[in-house]
């Protein structure tokens, strides 16, 4: 197991999440896919911590977990709000930002 191997697995994970964000229609699924991408980033942090022999990487991963939880909380609250106001959780329905 080398650093590159871990990083490539994490990159694959990131791309899978990205694909989900780009293709899924339900906002809940989009948040879910974002979780996968954040998870890939965490894997990277832990890998750097291990192969670089430095505790800050793991500490950052812990902080990132906390951040991700906060993001999911707010994100899901927004999803619920959108579901209530638009009557749908389809990502393509809200278009108030359209120029």
């Amino acid at each position: 197991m080398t650093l590159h191997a871990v990083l490539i697995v994490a990159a694959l994970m990131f791309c899978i999440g990205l694909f989900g964000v780009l293709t899924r229609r339900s906002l809940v699924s989009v948040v879910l896919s974002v979780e996968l991408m954040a998870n890939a980033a965490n894997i990277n942090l832990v890998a750097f911590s291990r192969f670089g022999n430095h505790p800050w990487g793991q500490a950052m991963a812990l902080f990132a977990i906390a951040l991700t939880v906060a993001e999911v909380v707010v994100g899901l609250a927004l999803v619920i709000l959108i579901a209530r106001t638009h009557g749908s959780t389809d990502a393509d329905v809200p278009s108030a930002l359209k120029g």
Partner: protein
Amino acid sequence: MIPFAVASLVLLGSGVMAVRTRDLVHAVLWLGLALVATAGIYVTMDAGFMAAIQVLLYTGGIVTLMLFAVMLARPDAEAAPNGQLRAALAVAAVFAGVVSVVLRSPDATTGAHIETQVLGAVILNQLALPFEVLSALLLVAMIGAIVLARKKDA
């Protein structure tokens, strides 16, 4: 090497399933599996404490939250995914870019075990300020979520 490969395969496989499954409840469960597999990868990287946190807090918290959201929002059946070819091309481009950067960076084969005591000392000494800021952020996020999600006429 073998445990890492197994964990990676489980991770990627469950990730693909989480992204592809139309049923939201099933997708969330696949996500849970992916997060657990990530914990497995942490174990193979000698980061036991991280693995424990990943399973206890992250997986538990996130999956529970998502399931609640799915049930509260009661989404309609999700429409079919669209723009898959375009998305695949974009993702391939990103993957190629990231891998090219990874392969150009120096590799490392030996790693060191990070003691949990050291990790705790780092978080509560050098990183004390970000730690406290983070706690404030969590509080704000909680209040924000309540404000956003509560019914206006309630």
